[in-house]
């Protein structure tokens, strides 16, 4: 397979980091990789986050402008806007304006009707404009998102998933180690053998940022937009700098989660999609060795 990354040159660092290979699984072995709680939560998230994003984009369409501070409406300056003119659609962030005719701001719907709304029908729930229905989906799945995250976090503390797989040591965040890992990723040199069973530092940082950063951020900024929650928990307004700031941060967190998703999918594809997806379904992962490359004959070290 021509698209296979070059795994033949095992980075020295990875060799040093690998546990003593006296006992333990070797290349080609199927080994237990993911807890049941991790796998269930992972696939639930595929559905939950997709529904949350798509219904959220419909909600954004009701007022496609973002502000900083407590208040913000049409007469107030927006730092971000998706809008339209008589002939074009555009995205404006600060003073930067990008024309997006046909995709954002101004597009043609499934019936061939020209619409002047922010996000197009093919990425919203429902596809036809309905703020009420989008809110119905968004708030129902918000419960799923919040409760499943709490359940996953509890399970991952109890089964020591966080401690064993996501603990970041000081040694790992040394600039030289980080830089070595960035180079490995850039060259698509993925860890092999036992080293592939542990998350490298970039993976740990990415997963930790999503779990303990972006997901709590998107949940609490969501709550901060609720007038009733603001009465009960006024500190929500204080930590995010006001309701409209919370709405902006909610949107930014969504964009960051989409970026994580894209990188995540790219990495799964590059690292071997069948093996990776199997490990997230059955829990078992086939340890990568040197064989695929030596068979391909591209690199002969």
């Amino acid at each position, binding site marked *: 397979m021509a698209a296979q990354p070059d795994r033949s040159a095992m980075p020295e660092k990875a060799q040093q980091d690998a546990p003593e290979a006296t006992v333990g699984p070797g290349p080609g072995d199927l080994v237990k990789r993911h807890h049941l709680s991790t796998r269930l939560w992972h696939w639930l998230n595929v559905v939950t986050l997709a529904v949350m994003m798509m219904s959220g984009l419909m909600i954004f369409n*009701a007022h496609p402008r973002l502000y900083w501070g407590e208040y913000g409406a049409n007469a107030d300056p927006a730092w971000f806007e998706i809008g339209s003119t008589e002939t074009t659609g555009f995205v404006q962030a600060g003073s930067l304006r990008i024309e997006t005719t046909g995709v954002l701001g101004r597009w043609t719907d499934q019936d061939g009707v020209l619409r002047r709304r922010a996000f197009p029908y093919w990425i919203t729930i429902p596809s036809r404009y309905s703020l009420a*229905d989008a809110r*119905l*989906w968004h708030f129902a799945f918000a419960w799923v998102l919040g409760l499943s995250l709490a359940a996953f976090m509890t399970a991952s503390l109890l089964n020591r998933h966080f401690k064993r797989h996501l603990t970041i040591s000081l040694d790992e965040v040394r600039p030289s180690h980080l830089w070595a890992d960035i180079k490995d990723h850039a060259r698509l040199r993925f860890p092999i053998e036992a080293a592939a069973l542990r998350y490298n530092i970039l993976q740990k940082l990415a997963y930790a940022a999503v779990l303990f950063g972006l997901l709590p951020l998107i949940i609490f900024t969501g709550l901060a937009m609720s*007038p009733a929650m603001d*009465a009960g928990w*006024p500190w929500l307004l204080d930590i995010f700098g006001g309701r409209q700031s919370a709405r902006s941060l909610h949107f930014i967190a969504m964009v960051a989660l989409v970026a994580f998703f894209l990188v995540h999918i790219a990495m799964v594809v590059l690292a071997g999609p069948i093996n990776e997806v199997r490990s997230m379904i059955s829990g078992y992962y086939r340890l990568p060795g040197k064989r695929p490359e030596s068979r391909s004959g591209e690199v002969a070290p």
Partner: protein
Amino acid sequence: MNRRDLLGGLSLGAGGLLLGGCDRLNADPSVRKILVGAEALNLRSQRLLAGGLAREYRRDQMSPVFRTNGNTRPESTAYLAHAATNFVDWRLIVDGLVAMPLKLSLGDLGTFPQRAQITRHDCVEGWSAIGKWQGPMLSDILKAAGLSDRARYIVFHCADGDANRPFYESIDLYDAFHPQTIMALLMNDRRLPMGHGAPLRLRVERQLGYKHAKFVMRIEARARIDDLYDGKGGYWEDSAGYAWYAGI
């Protein structure tokens, strides 16, 4: 057909299936029942967590422009006649499950203790504006009318609406007796402008803007609201499917 066309076609097809699926689910009555069920959780959980007062702001935190929304000029000739005479002959009707139905002029409403509050108005669409509201507390009006023990909901009948139904809204007694629930006569220290609901507007802080009924003509105490108009408790609830409880 080259590979790119094929891949493009496949992904479009998959997207179409997904989209069609979402819209079909959205229209499915049993799916909607589950989604609406989650809405009931919002009310219960927020009643547990979100007691207390909505934040009140300083004068310098107010919006320079407080935009209007929804109906800004009721078409009713009776209403417009009152507006033309500054509502001097207008009376607020308080009736339903009360011991003593009332007819209150603007002057009468001014004799109740007035509460002033600078609060944030959050529209369901996503925007917010901060303004100052002043008027009698709804609880004082209900006490003056002698609210019956059988009353569970307070309904606000308004001068606006469309060809199908007049505008109305409803809240339960939990919100009706909240100290920040007032019938605003003044906005930003001036008589309520028509665009914001002259002569009288409900302020039910802790809920979204569409609950804050404008042009209130009549306050009715009721035991139930499911027998009123389309049964969902409000104009937007009946006509557009918005949630009756709008705390989020």
